[in-house]
Structures are given as C-alpha cells and as structure tokens.
C-alpha cells in the first residue's frame, strides 16, 4: 500500500514569512499533484510534476519534485493571508493510472 506523508501537519506563520511543506512516499511516484483546499470547498489543483528534479513556479509558490521521484516540496515566499488553507499532495504510482493517493495535508494559517 502506497502512503503519502505530509509535514508539517499544521503551520501558523506571520505574513511575509517563508515556508516549506513536504510530501514523502516510500514508493516512486509516476506523477504528483499539489492541491489547495479552502474551508467548505473542494480542493483545487495548483500544479502537476512528473519529471524527477523538476521545478515549477507559480507566482510566489515553488514546487520541486525529488530526483528519485519519491518526495516533493512546496515553498511559499512572503506568505500572505490569502495563502491560508489546506495543502494536499496527491500521487499516482504507475503510468496511465487513474487512481490517486492523497496525503494527509498541511494546514497553513497566515496571520496578518
């Protein structure tokens, strides 16, 4: 059974600070997605990474996929209150699959 572990579980920071959250697996990902979920809503996709070592940037968010494709990180620069939410990673473990395993999530609160 593949498991995704996310850390930290909770994070409370001041506006303007930087932060990094992590997603780790004991298995090799075929692809990995990062989602953000706000209270009372469903998750919304931020990014998909598929190539080991890949780095993608989305404004102040930087996503990195580990060289061995077993881990990923999400770095937020100069966090804003609007970044508050639950960050979820999700992965597939074989090419052409359509089943996704989600991590347990990192709940981020950015204080003004």
């Amino acid at each position, binding site marked *: 059974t593949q498991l995704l572990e996310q850390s930290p579980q909770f994070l409370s920071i001041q506006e303007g600070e930087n932060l990094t959250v992590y997603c780790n697996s004991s298995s090799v990902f075929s692809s990995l997605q990062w989602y953000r979920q706000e209270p009372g809503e469903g*998750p919304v996709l931020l990014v998909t990474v598929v190539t080991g070592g890949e780095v993608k940037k989305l404004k102040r968010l930087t996503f990195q996929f580990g060289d061995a494709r077993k881990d990923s990180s999400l770095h937020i620069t100069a966090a804003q209150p609007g970044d508050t939410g639950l960050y979820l990673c999700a992965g597939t473990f074989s090419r052409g699959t359509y089943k996704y395993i*989600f991590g347990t999530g990192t709940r981020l609160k950015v204080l003004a």
Partner: protein
Amino acid sequence: NAGVTQTPKFRVLKTGQSMTLLCAQDMNHEYMYWYRQDPGMGLRLIHYSVGEGTTAKGEVPDGYNVSRLKKQNFLLGLESAAPSQTSVYFCASRPLQARGGRAHEQFFGPGTRLTVL
C-alpha cells in the same frame, strides 16, 4: 458551466438508514471519483469510474456502492449507514486527456457533509 455539483450539501442519518449522494458534471469528463475526507486523514478514494457503465473499488469501498448509468452522473449509495461513515464526501471528475500542463487535474465538487447518529 456549473462544473461538478453534489446533492445534497448536508444530511443527517440515523444508523441503519440508507441514502444516495448524487454527483453531476457538465464537462464531458470520462473519469469520476468519490472520496471521503476525515480530520487528519486527507482524502481517501471510495470508488471510481473510468467511463459510463464502469465502476471500480478504491481504498475504502466497504459499506458503499456506486453506479454510473450516465456519463455525467456518478451516484454513491449507503445501504445501511453507520456512525463510522460520518464524513465529508467529495466527488471529482477528470478528463481523459489534459492540455496545457494540467495533466491529472481533478475537478472537485463542493462536498456533502454527512452525519450518522
């Protein structure tokens, strides 16, 4: 486009009662999913469908049944509800192919909050 809609938004059941959750999508997506979300456990896949008339089990299928008689609808049934099924249920859909780097993007509905007493 309404995207993915879920009915109902809230429901309270007594142990042993049955109910059906309805998911509808208007994006002509092939794949549809049912997840449950519990505190500290992320999203867990209950059942999924890769096309009209097909269904398959996910991680936690016990106590649930599904049907996909029409491409746009995916129904989740609880035949005899138990308190352990108290959760927030999310439906999602995904196209067969995605463009513009949005591969594997699932589109989620707003969720159904179910309480079983």
